[in-house]
């Protein structure tokens, strides 16, 4: 009896959910382990490590991204229910959120505009191509909204998804030292700003600090998502 050659085995398994799921989960756990071992160095964060590990493996085995994603999409899908789940901490801190309604709303408009327009302005200034510039516009908001907006304003949705995740990594792991530098300790303020600028990845990190910070982050993320979805395409059609 002949054994199946390893190459054929690989191409059979990489499309199956089993390998996509096992690979994603173990790469992430390896990232978590490394992050803890390194004393929580921001550049060795679990998401970045997992992405690099998987991308290198796919590249070395000549596996198309789509084949991997066919299996890993079940993990990707959980972003949906996780977004819905944010309603629970929002509810728990609803009273505090209402007390701060006015500062939060003004902060939302100011921060949202700053993030979107500084991203596009700086990229343009440094000579990025128009598609790259437009793909950067919605990068602070949650992936599905950002991809939809990118399509409407002339960006590349899948490129935007990449920018969204890099933004999330920068925000999630850069925020703690950054806020120490700015001397902002107030958890609700920190949380709202993180969620606004760094969506779900920022929010996931905020929850690890405190549930209160997480709830405010969830609110910042949700509100900026809605504002960006509604306003950015309108502003763009006015400019053109």
């Amino acid at each position, binding site marked *: 009896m002949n054994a199946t050659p390893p190459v054929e085995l690989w191409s059979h398994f990489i499309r199956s959910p089993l390998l996509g799921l096992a690979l994603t989960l173990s790469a992430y756990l390896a990232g978590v382990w490394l992050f803890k071992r390194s004393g929580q160095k921001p550049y060795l964060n679990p998401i970045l490590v997992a992405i690099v590990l998987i991308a290198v493996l796919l590249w070395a085995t000549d596996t198309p991204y789509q084949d991997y994603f066919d299996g890993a999409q079940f993990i990707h899908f959980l972003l949906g229910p996780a977004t819905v789940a944010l309603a629970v901490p929002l509810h728990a801190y609803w009273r505090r959120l209402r007390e701060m309604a006015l500062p939060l709303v*003004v902060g939302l408009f100011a921060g949202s505009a700053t993030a979107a327009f500084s991203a596009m302005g700086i990229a343009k200034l440094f000579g990025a191509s128009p598609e790259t510039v437009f793909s950067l516009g919605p990068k602070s908001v949650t992936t599905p909204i950002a991809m939809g907006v990118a399509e409407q304003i002339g960006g590349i949705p899948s490129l935007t998804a990449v920018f969204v995740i890099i933004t999330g990594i920068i925000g999630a792991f850069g925020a703690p030292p950054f806020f120490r530098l700015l001397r902002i300790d107030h958890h609700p303020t920190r949380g709202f700003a993180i969620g606004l600028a760094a969506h779900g990845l920022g929010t996931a990190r905020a929850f690890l600090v405190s549930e209160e910070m997480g709830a405010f982050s969830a609110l910042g993320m949700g509100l900026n998502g809605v504002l960006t979805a509604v306003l950015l395409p309108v502003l763009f059609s006015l400019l053109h």
Partner: protein
Amino acid sequence: MLNTLALLLLYQLGGELVARFFGLPIPGPVIGMTLLLLTLLARGQVSHDTRTNVGAFLQHMSLFFVPAGVGVMVHLHRVANEWLPIVISLVVSTFAGMAVTAWVIRALSPTKHTPSKEEARR
């Protein structure tokens, strides 16, 4: 755990239906989150189990971003060609967005912040 998962999926489904039906530019899960929040506010309380399960689920939320993040390999060529504007734009705009938001909130908050329980504990 199953109750919680079913609850989340049903609200997501509800959100998707609302988004499709009204042709909204907002994704189903965001609408589902709003619908669930309204339900919880109307009911006034959340079961202990739901809170625990949701907490455990959200703890691992960053894992769910990994499959989309691996998509960077598709755009490696463009990212390598334009890495300087991309890196500066992403870093500066993310920190600028956070700083402006936090400064505005602090400037408009009426009273000096009293540290919350969690902050005091640190």
